[in-house]
């Protein structure tokens, strides 16, 4: 899901061009010629329709949910209600009951995400540097990668304690192996001729890595960031399910245990927003970093 600026939302109210001059001017902005204006107009109307439909779909689903639970076609005890979820969200927010949970979970996720990605990349560098090691470790990586990391949860709690330690360890565990495998794979896929080129200038191993391998693999590393954001969220939420006394994962489990499904939905709503914001942040970073590449 992409979040969009208000600008397009304002225009959604009247997506068709028969309106006043302002709309027409917006639709044909930056046109180089009448034909180009026509093209831009078509593209932009299309774009506005997409936005409009997206918002309409959301409103429709929420309204359906509200109506079905209001008339007891769906049990509001099980499915809660958008209006109840919203008012609980607002009241918790105002009472300051959410801040600690959000901060705890977001921090755990960010730390887990960064540590998972960085250490996965570092391991990939080490294996690239020592081909012997890569051959030795190959079966281990395969097994570890195939292993559902969540199953290791109890081990992490024993090893790192029930607080932040165990949860962050879970977030790291879930992303580190796949990062290693993907990044190491991209190191190996770098065009051999680029390496040959560096060698013709007498480059040593460190220079080959620094000048060729690492920058060539940057797009892959950045794209693992995007995957790892999602994985870190999985790790943290599962970690919180298992042990914690605070965090959004804790709220979900707690809400479930006391059968307050509204609380569960409030938490899910916040998780969805935080995760989307982080994902967008990484996507923007990716664009920045890779802007100049052909």
């Amino acid at each position, binding site marked *: 899901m992409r979040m969009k600026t208000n600008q397009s939302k304002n225009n959604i109210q009247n997506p068709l061009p028969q309106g006043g001059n302002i709309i027409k001017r917006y639709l044909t902005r930056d046109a180089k010629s009448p034909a180009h204006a026509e093209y831009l107009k078509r593209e932009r109307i299309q774009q506005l329709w997409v936005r409009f439909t997206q918002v309409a779909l959301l409103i429709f689903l929420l309204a359906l949910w509200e109506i079905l639970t209001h008339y007891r076609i769906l049990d509001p005890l099980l499915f809660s209600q958008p209006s109840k979820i919203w008012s609980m969200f607002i009241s918790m927010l105002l009472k300051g009951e959410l801040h600690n949970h959000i901060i705890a979970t977001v921090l755990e996720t960010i730390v887990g995400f960064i540590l998972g990605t960085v250490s996965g990349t570092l391991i990939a560098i080490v294996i690239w540097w020592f081909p012997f090691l890569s051959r030795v470790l190959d079966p281990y990586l395969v097994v570890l990668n195939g292993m559902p990391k969540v199953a290791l949860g109890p081990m992490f709690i024993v090893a790192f304690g029930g607080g932040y330690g165990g949860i962050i360890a879970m977030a790291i565990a879930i992303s580190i192996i796949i990062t290693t495998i993907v990044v190491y794979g991209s190191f190996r896929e770098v*065009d051999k*001729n*680029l390496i*040959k*080129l*560096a*060698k*013709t*200038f*007498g*480059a040593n191993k460190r*220079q080959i890595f620094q*000048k*060729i391998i690492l*920058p*060539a693999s*940057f797009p892959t590393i950045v794209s693992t960031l995007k995957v790892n954001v999602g994985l870190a969220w999985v790790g943290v939420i599962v970690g919180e399910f298992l042990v914690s006394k605070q965090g959004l994962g804790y709220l979900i489990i707690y809400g479930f245990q006391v059968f307050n499904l509204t609380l569960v939905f409030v938490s899910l709503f916040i998780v969805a927003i935080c995760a989307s914001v982080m994902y967008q942040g990484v996507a923007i970073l990716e664009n920045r970093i890779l802007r*100049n*590449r*052909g």
Partner: protein
Amino acid sequence: MSKDIIKFNNVCKTYVTMEGETEALRNINLSIREGEFIAILGPSGCGKTTILSLLAGLISPTSGSITIWNKEVKSTSQNVGYMLQHDYLLNWRTIKQNIMLGLEILKQNTKENRDYALELLDEMNLLPFQNYYAHQLSGGMRQRVALVRTLAIKPYILLLDEPFSALDYTTRLRLEDLVSETLRKRNKTAILVTHDIAEAISMADRIIIMATSPGRIKREIEVPPPLRDPLPFSSRKVPEFQKYFQLIWREMNENENESIQK
């Protein structure tokens, strides 16, 4: 007559892998004079690129020796510049940063050397593009950047591994002239690997024809002055050009029949 700068003495090269071994070169003997432009012509798989890699010090011979100025080639050296089949410009660097790659690796990234590289870029009429990225340039421009990158480290010997093969015909003809002129002006020794007979005749002072499996020298042909002196494009118009083309064509086809019979 100038002195020999490069010598191959009975060089053999066999590649070994888990699957077995391939004899790439057998008993190569070759001397190259300073400032000479040599073209190595032959079918694919005749070890042309192996000769360049040996000379560049990227690989070592199985037996025999290669010397540059009577010193055995043991590793890569700044005396030798290698221009590959494609430009291999790094897409994360600007043109200016690309041409400095060799200087950076050799830790000679001084103001003086950088200025020299920019001068070369100017000579190729590419100075206005120094802050562009490689994907914004055409194939011919990119290959010219690659030439600047190779020349920026001031090599005495230039190895050209089919540097024009990926370009369209017009660009190719223009670039042949440009490269010839640039190398002549600086009196560089050059070895061009190609499978294009016309390119070999128009650019080289001497042509080495190779045969395949195993790769060996079949014949050497001196290109006469009327073909050698003008720039490549003009020498294509000299009457003798056709005669030499036919001669080499016959020689190379003989090669082919010979290997089919085997």
